[in-house]
């Protein structure tokens, strides 16, 4: 039997999304993005915080990824690595914030499992980044590229087919 207390205000979720979004914008500014792009990214970050159940978080991540790719050559530079947890935080915060109406209360125990899983995912991704940093930076054999693309397409088809029941 769990006693339901007052919890904390669920406004902390949009605040967390806004902070992560601000981190993304700051990362883009650090990389030397144009002011117009920063304005667009800032607007998307604000929209992601205020309307989490909208395309704004996805657009913010896509804009940030595109700008990051365009502005640097080193794929494992700090600006990219900073974007990995920030993007995940925007995604997760918006996902939870979209569940709750205005004035809701948040009980910190509810955040335990998703935060633990997010930490595990981040650990795995950074382990993969570590492996990538050790690999040679030369061109990948075409056969391997085609296999990778087919793998990604296969995962996409699998998710679509298995999720049809939605």
């Amino acid at each position: 039997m769990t006693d339901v207390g007052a919890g904390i205000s669920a406004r902390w979720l949009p605040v967390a999304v806004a902070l992560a979004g601000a981190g993304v914008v700051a990362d883009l500014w650090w990389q030397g993005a144009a002011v117009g792009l920063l304005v667009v990214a800032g607007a998307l970050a604000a929209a992601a915080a205020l309307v989490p159940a909208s395309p704004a978080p996805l657009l913010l991540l896509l804009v940030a990824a595109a700008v990051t790719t365009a502005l640097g050559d080193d794929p494992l530079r700090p600006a990219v690595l900073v974007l990995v947890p920030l993007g995940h935080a925007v995604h997760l915060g918006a996902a939870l914030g979209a569940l709750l109406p205005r004035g809701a209360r948040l009980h910190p125990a509810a955040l335990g499992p998703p935060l633990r899983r997010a930490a595990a995912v981040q650990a795995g991704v950074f382990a993969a980044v570590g492996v990538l940093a050790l690999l040679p930076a030369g061109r990948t054999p075409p056969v391997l590229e085609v296999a990778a693309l087919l793998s990604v397409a296969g995962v996409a088809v699998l998710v679509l087919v298995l999720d049809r029941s939605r």
Partner: protein
Amino acid sequence: MNRVLAWATARRAAGRAGWRGTDALLRGAFGGLGLVGAGVALHRVDLVVIGLPLLVSTVLALSVPPGRPVRVTAQKLPRSVEAGDSARVAITVDHGGGVEFTAVRLPLPGRPGVGPVHLLPGADRELRTHLRWNTWGEGVDLRPDHLAGGRDGLLVSGPVVGVESRRTVLPPLAPPPAGPLPARLTGVVGAHRSPRPGDGAEPRAVRPFRPGDRVRRIDWRVSLRAGAATGEALGSPHVRERHAEADADLVFALDSRADVGPDLGSWSTAEPGGPVRRGGSLDTAVRAIAALAAAHLRQGDRVGLVDLGRPQLGVPPGVGRRQLLRLRHQLVACTRSAGWSPRPVLRPGQVPAGAAVVVLSPFLDDAVVDAAIRAAGHTRLLLAVDVLPAELVADPETPWGGAVRRVLLAEHRVRLAALRAHGVAVVPPEGVAAALARHRRGRR
């Protein structure tokens, strides 16, 4: 392969059970796949690195499909409670697993209403919340609307509107001093002295014995003294007469047409959170009626209720604890749709002959004054209880606020003066008992 098939079967069952994907699922699946795919196609590892957490977390989240939809049931509570009571309510959250979050609407401790939505761990299946009823009235205090979320909130079921739990919070019973009431001539039992001779405890007179008197009523000491005075022993036996004891009828007339508070600017707006303003005229009147009714019913009087706004809601006079409960329920019913009647109704048929009538009103219109004066003509005693807040505050948002306040107070004073001029005593709510006592002393 068998595990994949089992997953797919469970996922299809979840879809049939009402689970659906959210924007976060689209974001994780298509955003993650798009970034990783674009990174592979464009030979950009940074895109893969940025998209990988979305893709991996989405796959991990979807790997545990949720089961049957969530059902939330609340423990049954009594339909009526006392103001100031509190209770702990058990709420059961039943689901088939795979639920990481439940968002349930539950009341906040110490706050009225159904409360906000609480985001709780899906593992908590037995919840307990605290209800406290501070304000009397009728309303919904529990409605567990709920929504269930799968891992990372990628799949949701709901929202489902919960079953409303309505309750009547009875007006509180403050302990006022209970005053005596005028005796009713037709009664022969009760706690009040009747002017008629009877079998009560209070002595009435000593008089010569008459045919029909009971022998045990003869006062032998007085009789011997009277005989000694006249010179004949036992010549004129005297009896000691006692007053009869009578029950009294008390009828409260509640003016439910207006509910006003001290702030004049809020008179035209409804009270948020309930039909009655806390500390307003209707609240004051209902609390006074409940307290006085309890005191008078306790001493054996018959107490009734008249709603000046809706005569059909009246309660005929009665006695006992059930009558008190009935009166308190009816007071709540009277306030449920207060303020919808243009004219007060107080007919002679609503008041038993010989009853005392107490009219509780803010006296904001002439109609209630007319009704009270007319009723005073056919009742033994009528008291007017002014429940208008003592200090009225002018509306600061209009330059006419001060003038409106002065006009209202002047009209109110004129109405009270008219009542007094017609012999109707006007008292504050806390002065009813004293006024009834004064009336009785005057009758003696």
